[in-house]
């Protein structure tokens, strides 16, 4: 009699692995798709002009005659309020989900860089690890140290969360896909992110722990110092665009690299670098992560937090990557500009004002959103890459860098831009010339970089690039 062992690859096992993969793909693409489409649909439609047309259209669908322009002011305001509330809710969710997915992406990238396998248990490629972590954090005990300042300790995470959530209002996802096209858009962003400092300081101080206090002090010094070069660097594209509004800054750029602000101004590269470094510092990212320097301060200002409050800090830190990248893309890298589709194309597709736009316009919006997201993800990847490559700099070196190098550099960039703008006003070709030259230089640098990378990989005997183990 032969007793056959069941083969380890039983059909049920491989089927469930495939099931997991499908579920991961479905949710991994589905949730962002849902959120993006919600933003796509709701952002333009929650503006007062189009809201009326939407309600009318809805009414026609249901066979009723609804004309919001004839309603009382209160009713119109209520309608506007509801639509804006829904959009805000969607944006908040978007922030949370993008934060979680950034965690996943960062952990996968870092594991590849470190020759590790990385997350691979919860979902295909470990995609749902962030969900598992969030759930775990929710179930943890919510400890508030007895000696901590009771009110401030509990309030601090919310400052940070508010400072993070409010930025999504002014992020330009697409040509008309912005929750509120404030005419002081970038100024609003800078001021709202300053709330995060308040949250960090409160966290550090109210924890009543020396290590937390250390971290809070360091972080406050860092973020406040780096606001200066960031602000100065932001002034460069503002000067070039002539406006503080996010959409206007993007409209003044073009879709092609030689039309981006980072290239059309010879000093744009410097301004971009100063801005990039300052954003890293404001987001407490390595090489500027002294406030959370693990090997020195355990978790810095977060040491005493647990459970959901910790989750909020975590969420904000990773969600900030998206915000940082989005702002960098907006200011310097051309935003959502679509190649071959200038403002006339958008206007033509728009149709008459007051009526719902046609499908062509929606299609263009999708393209612009896709371009924006792609560029943002690229810059986000840069930030993640820098984190896992560079060591941390020391507090006094960080202050040196800010005040001795970045601030003068940003000032120089600002003054140069003033003069450059005068030149461009006289000689409009100068901007294009600078753009083309710098694009060619950037392309050359990229090619050299990639070639050197390939050579470095070849140099280590026995190493190979291994993309299995997903």
């Amino acid at each position, binding site marked *: 009699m032969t007793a056959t062992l069941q083969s380890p690859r039983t059909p049920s096992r491989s089927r469930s692995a495939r099931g997991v993969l499908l579920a991961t793909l479905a949710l991994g693409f589905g949730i962002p798709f849902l959120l993006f489409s919600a933003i796509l649909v709701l952002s333009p439609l929650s503006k007062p002009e189009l809201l009326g047309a939407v309600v009318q259209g809805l009414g026609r669908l249901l066979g009723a005659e609804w004309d919001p322009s004839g309603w009382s002011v209160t009713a119109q305001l209520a309608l506007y309020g509801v639509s804006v509330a829904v959009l805000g809710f969607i944006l908040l969710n978007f922030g949370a989900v993008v934060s979680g997915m950034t965690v996943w992406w960062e952990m996968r990238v*870092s594991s590849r*860089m*470190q*020759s*590790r396998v990385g997350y691979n248990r919860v979902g295909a490629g470990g995609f749902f690890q962030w969900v598992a972590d969030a759930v775990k954090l929710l179930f943890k005990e919510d400890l508030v140290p007895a000696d901590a300042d009771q009110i401030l300790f509990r309030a601090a995470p919310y400052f940070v969360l508010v400072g993070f959530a409010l930025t999504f209002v002014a992020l330009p996802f697409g040509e008309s896909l912005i929750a509120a096209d404030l005419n002081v858009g970038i100024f609003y962003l800078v001021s709202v992110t300053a709330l995060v400092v308040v949250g960090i300081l409160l966290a550090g101080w109210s924890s009543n722990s*020396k*290590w937390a206090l*250390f971290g809070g002090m*360091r972080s406050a010094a860092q973020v406040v110092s780096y606001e200066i070069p960031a602000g100065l660097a932001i002034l460069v594209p503002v000067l070039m665009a002539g406006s503080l509004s996010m959409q206007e800054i993007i409209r003044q750029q073009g879709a092609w690299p030689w039309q981006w602000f980072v290239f059309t101004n010879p000093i744009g590269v410097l301004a971009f670098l100063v801005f990039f470094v300052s954003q890293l510092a404001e987001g407490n990212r*390595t*090489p500027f*992560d*002294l406030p959370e*320097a*693990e*090997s*020195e301060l*355990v978790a810095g200002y977060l040491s005493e937090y647990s459970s959901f409050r910790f989750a909020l800090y975590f969420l904000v830190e990773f969600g900030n990557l998206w915000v940082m990248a989005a702002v960098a893309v907006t200011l310097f890298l051309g935003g959502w500009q679509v190649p071959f589709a200038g403002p006339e194309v958008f206007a033509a597709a728009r149709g008459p004002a007051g009526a719902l736009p046609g499908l062509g316009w929606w299609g263009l919006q999708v393209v612009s959103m896709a371009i924006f997201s792609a560029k943002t993800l690229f810059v986000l990847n840069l930030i993640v890459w820098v984190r*896992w*490559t*560079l*060591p*941390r*700099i*020391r*507090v*006094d*070196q960080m202050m040196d860098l800010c005040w001795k190098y970045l601030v003068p550099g940003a000032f120089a960039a600002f003054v140069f831009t003033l003069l450059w703008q005068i030149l461009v006003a006289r000689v409009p070709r100068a901007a294009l010339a600078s753009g083309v030259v710098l694009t060619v230089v950037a392309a050359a640098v990229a090619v050299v970089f990639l070639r050197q990378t390939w050579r*470095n990989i070849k*140099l*280590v*005997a*026995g*190493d190979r690039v291994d993309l299995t183990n997903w």
Partner: protein
Amino acid sequence: MEKLILRRVDRSGEEMILNFGPQHPSTHGVINFIVETDGEVLKKAVPDVGYLHRSLEKIGEIVGYPGFMPFTDRVDYVAAMFANEGYAVAVERLLKLEVPPRAQWLRAVSCELTRIASHLISVGTMAMDIGAFTPMLHGVRERETINDLIEALCGSRLTYNYHRIGGVAFDMPEEWRDKVLRFLDHFDTFLQEFDRLISFNEIYIRRLANVAVITGEQAIDYGLVGPNLRASGVDWDLRRDMPYGAYPSFKFGVPVGKGFFGVSGDCFDRYYVRILEMAESSKIVRQALESMPDGETMAKVPRNIKPEPGEAISRIESARGEMAYYVVSDGTNKAYRVRVRAGSFTAMGIIEDISPGLMVADLVALIASLDVVAPEIDR
């Protein structure tokens, strides 16, 4: 301990007294520092050791000569071969035992491989303490291969119990030599990649160069040994200057810190000397494998080891410096006194006097660059 410091502190100003440890995220073991800071700048950092004291020296008086060998692994579990070798050499001197050449060569090979593994941990954790997480994992990946090789050799990845009194426990397996040589081919190029990744990184150099400088006289006076001593400019290596075992047959360089990017004796020198030492160890392993003599791996050792009354000291160049075993015998089969002198113990002693004026981040760099492991300090 804190009470002692508090008495001496002037309570004006913004001084804080903090406990740095004993639970460190940095993997130097269980050590505590009582740190008195004024803002970011330290006034004093007093080490508080003893959390890992396992009374190994007392155990040495109980378990008998061969029985103590596994305990020596635990003296320094990051580079355990050296501890094994030190004890074996001390007892062999007491017994006036001649170790066969093949065993000595095997000792050299296993020790040098362990030196590479230990230095990988050292530079890796140092990079991690400075904030770069990736080099640690690259180093640990290489160390995994070494662990696998040594596991093929002696069955164990961390606490080897490989060197025995009179020789080594096992011979090389088949094809082990080829595997080691293949690993070394890879490793030599890996070191260059590691250098490109972190050693010459501007931020890393700024963090380490000219930080916590220990001059040569200070190093000798405070009893620093090994790479710490060499980084301070003192050209001394037991393997070359007072050789033992198979080392007279090998040609290798001894890297000395000459202020690669700063002053001789700063943290970067201590780091870079270790990187260079790994390259030298790789050369030694190659030479040893090539010139490995045939023969037995173990001398004729009596069943019941009962040396004549006397005492002997053995000095070994371990990964952390000069490790000395001082064994006193009273004629019975149990040692009368076993004393382990390890390099990390005196390295801790210097921290208190070097620390005033450093910043907290520099203290981390200093501790990491001295490559202390808690089991050696506390035994």
